[in-house]
Structure formats: structure tokens, C-alpha cells
């Protein structure tokens, strides 16, 4: 393997930072959602890189389950976003402050 594992891990870290910046900086719920997907992908990338490095299947299995859970999370999350949009006519996360008490 000519490209060292360090390159993959750095790519994963930078992708994770991008996702984290998106979650912290954007105001739209769907964009926050997409940024969460970016972070999940960065974690998957690191898991597969380490699985390749050690020649084990465990990392691959974790990625498999992460993808499954991400699919479930997206289905429920987007349903919630659409339901919120129907009642509030907005999905700006700054407009959603009913639970502040």
C-alpha cells in the first residue's frame, strides 16, 4: 500500500472538521443534517483505514452498522424536519425554541 494510513486519517480528520463546522455554523436544519452525514462518513473512513492497516474485518463490520443506523436516523430525522416545517413554516434552528421554558 503506497499511500500511507496517515494520509487517510488526515483526510478523515479534515472531513470531520468540515462536518463539525457545518453543524456549528449553519442555521438550516437540513444542512446541519448533511453535515452530520459528513461527520459519520469521516468516522467510517477512519474505521476502514484502520481495518485495512490491521487486516481485520471488525472495522468493516462497524462501518456496516454505522451505515445502517445512519439510514434509520435520516428517515426519522427528515420526517421530523418535514413535520416541523408543516407546523412552523420554518426549519431555521434558531426559530425552534419552544422547549426553553
Amino acid at each position, binding site marked *: 500500500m503506497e499511500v500511507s494510513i496517515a494520509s487517510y486519517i488526515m483526510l478523515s480528520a479534515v472531513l470531520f*472538521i468540515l*462536518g463539525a463546522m457545518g453543524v456549528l*455554523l449553519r442555521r438550516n436544519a*437540513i*444542512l446541519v443534517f448533511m453535515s452530520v452525514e459528513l461527520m459519520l*462518513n469521516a468516522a467510517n473512513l477512519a474505521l476502514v483505514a484502520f481495518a485495512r*492497516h490491521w487486516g*481485520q474485518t471488525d472495522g468493516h463490520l462497524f462501518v456496516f452498522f454505522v451505515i445502517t443506523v445512519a439510514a434509520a436516523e435520516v428517515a426519522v430525522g*427528515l420526517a421530523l424536519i418535514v413535520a416541523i416545517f408543516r407546523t412552523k413554516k420554518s426549519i431555521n434552528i434558531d426559530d425552534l425554541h419552544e422547549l426553553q421554558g
Partner: protein
Amino acid sequence: MIEINAQSIAFAILAVLTLGGGLGVVLNRNLFRGAIWLMVSLFGVAGIFVLLSAPFLAAVQVLVYIGAIAILITFAVMLTRSMTNLGERFVRRTAGIVVAVLLFFFILLGTILPVWGVDGTRYDDVSAPAENVATTRELGVALVDGNQFVLPFEVASLLLTAAMIGAIVIAREDEE
């Protein structure tokens, strides 16, 4: 050092796709374009899975992420039509921006320093990667073997069913 060969060229192209797509998601003003950029980024990650000898996961990535999740996000963008074009790109709270920038440098330093070292020594070739490669066959066996991952596998199916029913219940219009 990274020498120039087919693999490093492929890695460079896929890394540019992945990070460019990520930047597109974080920086754009139009939600629909954001969804397209997300697909670009996910496709780059699928290519990197191929480079890391995980062709099954690359196929799952394309099928589930690009084929299902990105399409679902596109649907959600279209259902929330009036929010598609954002007047304002970022939050206005300075605290969030400060935290994000700090996090950026923290993680960047945390990954770059161990690789390049503080005094110019590189640590990325301490150990060579394993000779044997995890195959799709081993992955399939591990998922149905009673001693390994059969229970998480069943729980995952249950989770998917629950999520599907939950999504229908949440998104359904009230009838009365």
C-alpha cells in the same frame, strides 16, 4: 514520502472530490446544490473505500448513502421549498464561530502533529500495513456466525423496521 503512482493519483483525486463536496455542503447558499455536493462527497468516500480494499462497503456506500440517504435529503429539500434559498449563510452568534474555529485548529493540530512530528520527524511509517486483506467473504461469515455479529445484525433489522414505522407516523398528516 508519497511517491507518484496510480494509487496516489487516485487518492489525490478522490480526496479532492471528498473535501470539495464537503466544502460545497458547508459553504453554499442553496440547499439543493448542497444535496448534490453531498452526493459528490459521498462518492469520493466510496472511491476511497475501494482504494482501501473494501469493495463491498463501497457498493453499500453508493447504494445506501447516494441511492437512499441523499435522495431522501433531496426530497426533504423539495418538501421545504420556501427554505431552499438561504438569505443568510451562517449563524450570527460569535460564540459558535469561535468554538468552530478553535475546534478546527485543535483537530488539525491533533492529526498533523503525530504525523509530521514536532521536530520534523515523521511517524507515519512506524508499522507497515497488514499483508492479509479482509475479504467480503469474511465479512458475510461474521454477520451470520453465532459467535460474532449475528445479534447486532438482528437488532439492526429491528431498528430499521422501527425507524420506518416511526418515520411514517411522524410525517403523516393528521386525518381529523
